[in-house]
């Protein structure tokens, strides 16, 4: 509406030339403001209703990424038991330097079967790891993956501090070639060529659906609409942390299925903007301000020096 008014007014005011200029500038301004990340980026939607906890995705990931063999084979389901999971405070297993994805089990009283939840990097649209990295080790690719470059990483681990999903992990065991270990959406081997990641391909239950993020949101909404009793009316990842490429559907409140429901619904960088915005001001204003203070504070002394013509100290 506003654009239209401006358009019309400038049309009247400036004639054809002015209008053309206004339209052009509006267009570029709109493009910048509305830039919806990478519009054709891919994603995955995980349907907790369909997952049976077979751990095929874990096995496929391990093979695809050349990760070390686990202590217990992937068909050993005792890893789901709380005392085996090793997580602190019953948090379940988590990603670490030997596994980019893990499945955890949740026994809930209101449903008759256990619920399984796969976790891995959610490949945020505005990743906290990327925005917090001071050597640009992270890249968000147009295909949707958040990839990592070990060649420039210093090992400060700020990305791990920043990630709201606790995903990046560090090779603490290595002194000479430590690095961040995290899911990269099988970017090098698959996503680049338009193929789904290994875990999605391995899933026998079609619990993981690969596609364009915009289409996945439609699919998710459709499933909720068609079976309103079977899902909570929320797609986790649609807005969490400003939106993620991997999203989830759940039959129970996401908090019960081990999700952090307090993750803010805006990109992490928004919390840092307040500080970042003062930086240029301090850089520009402080020199003049404090030089001024100096002149004011030493005015008397300057005058005195003038009179006696004495040196300092």
């Amino acid at each position, binding site marked *: 509406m506003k654009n239209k008014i401006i358009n019309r007014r400038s049309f009247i005011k400036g004639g054809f030339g002015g209008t053309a200029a206004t339209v052009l500038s509006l267009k570029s301004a709109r493009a910048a403001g509305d830039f919806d990340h990478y519009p054709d980026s891919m994603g995955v939607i995980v349907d907790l209703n369909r997952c049976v906890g077979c751990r095929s995705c874990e096995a496929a990931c391990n093979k695809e990424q050349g990760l070390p063999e686990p202590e217990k084979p992937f068909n050993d389901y005792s890893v789901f038991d709380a005392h085996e999971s090793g997580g*602190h405070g019953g948090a379940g297993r988590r990603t670490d330097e030997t596994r980019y994805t893990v499945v955890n089990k949740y026994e809930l009283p209101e449903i008759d079967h256990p619920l399984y939840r796969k976790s891995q990097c959610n490949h945020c649209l505005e990743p906290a790891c990327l925005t*917090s990295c001071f050597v640009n080790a992270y890249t968000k690719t147009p295909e949707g993956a958040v990839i990592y470059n070990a060649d420039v990483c*210093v*090992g400060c681990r*700020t990305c791990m501090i920043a990630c709201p999903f606790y995903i990046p992990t*560090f090779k603490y065991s290595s*002194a000479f070639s*430590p690095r961040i270990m995290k899911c990269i959406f099988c970017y090098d081997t698959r996503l680049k060529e338009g193929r789904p990641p290994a875990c999605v391909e391995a899933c026998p239950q079609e619990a993981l659906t690969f596609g364009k993020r915009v289409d996945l949101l439609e699919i998710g909404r459709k499933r909720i609409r068609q079976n309103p009793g079977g899902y909570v009316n929320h797609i986790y990842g649609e807005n969490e942390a400003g939106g993620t490429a991997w999203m989830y559907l759940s039959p129970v409140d996401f908090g019960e299925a081990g999700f952090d429901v307090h993750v803010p619904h805006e990109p992490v960088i928004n919390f*840092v903007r307040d500080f970042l915005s003062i930086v240029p001001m301090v850089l520009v204003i402080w020199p003049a301000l*404090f030089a001024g203070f100096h002149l004011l504070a030493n005015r008397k002394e300057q005058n005195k020096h003038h009179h006696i013509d004495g040196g300092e100290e």
Partner: protein
Amino acid sequence: MKLFASEKQEIPISDHFKPDGSRWTLKEKLLLGLSFDDYRKQLVRNPLNWLILIIFAIGVPIIVERFVFGLGSVTHGSNDYPWGLFLAFGLFGMVPLSASGFMLGTTVELFGRKDFHPIERLALLNGLLGYFFAVIYLQVDLGMPWRLPYPMVVSLGPAAVLFLVAWHVATYLSVQIAEVLPSFFEWIGWLKGKRMIRSMVLCLTIAGIILSTLHQGALGALFTYPAGKLHPLWMSANFLWIQFLCSAVFGGLSMLIIVSTLSKWFLAWRCDNQFLDSLDKLTLGLAKGAAFAMITYLGIKFMAIAHDKEWVYLFTGWGQYYLLELTIGVVIPMMLFAFAVRNGNAQMARVAAFISVFGVLWNRINTALIGFNWHMYQEIPHWKEVAITITIFTLYLATYRFILYRLPILYAWKGEK
């Protein structure tokens, strides 16, 4: 050293020339004007040296272990708690306590308060060493310490807060080296260098203010990335950076009170009368500044809670812990400072300074470790992590003492300057 200083007339060295008119050589200056034997004797006689030796004997092998077997072998750093004691204490704790350099630089050079001149150099040195050892702590913690210059030259990520910290700490370190150099130049007798620095002292001071404002704040802003992980009472997207900056002001001033007090107690032979005589008055001056910074800090803390409407958290266990930190770490020393200034009681200001420095460290550890992941489990540092932290701190103290023994920091150089 105290004994030798009282026995021999020519030491402590504070001039280029011996009483007989010949020049001290650099080696003699390094040995404090003692013979090798005497120097060794005073090393052995001082019990503090034995303590340092024991700490190094335990700590240095553990540091070697860290660099050979990796961080995992000596710390409880984990994927949930990527940062441990090295950064919580060494970086986030040491940097605010080293704000004294820019505070006193500003007071003396910029505002022209020449009466603070006797402790200006101590403040600058305290700043320089604090930052330098913060970088050492960082080097122990970094996964790939040999890549420290990467953010400067290899791969730049200028939109990150840590980028700002890296650049500013690096530039500020050079600024501080330049600010401390005049005392070194006096000591070796190279006056041209001193005059060169003197001519740009105002630029250096203003650069110091800019860099300090930004990186002290940036250390706080780093904790706005884990917005959801840090307890809401400590987290404030709008105010955390200014809280860190403001607490660095009284942290730096209190630290200066502590080091000047320790110098007066243990290094009286090295201090000149100007330093010793004016110290009580200057301590009260610093105390006044610290008290003002503290009331401002409390105001910002209050604002942050009001702004984010977090009153309800104050009635939880976390809230009580938070109030305890503020009461012990800020309110009590603030009142002590105020009473001290009012009654002209420098001893009380010294007590307050010890509490206040503890308060700043406690706040940083609460932000980086205890309030971090507050909805998860608590991480307790590995004993080896504590040992490394203590070892590096001991190295810091030893370096500090080495310099104070020699350079004209606590005394004015008597020779040409």
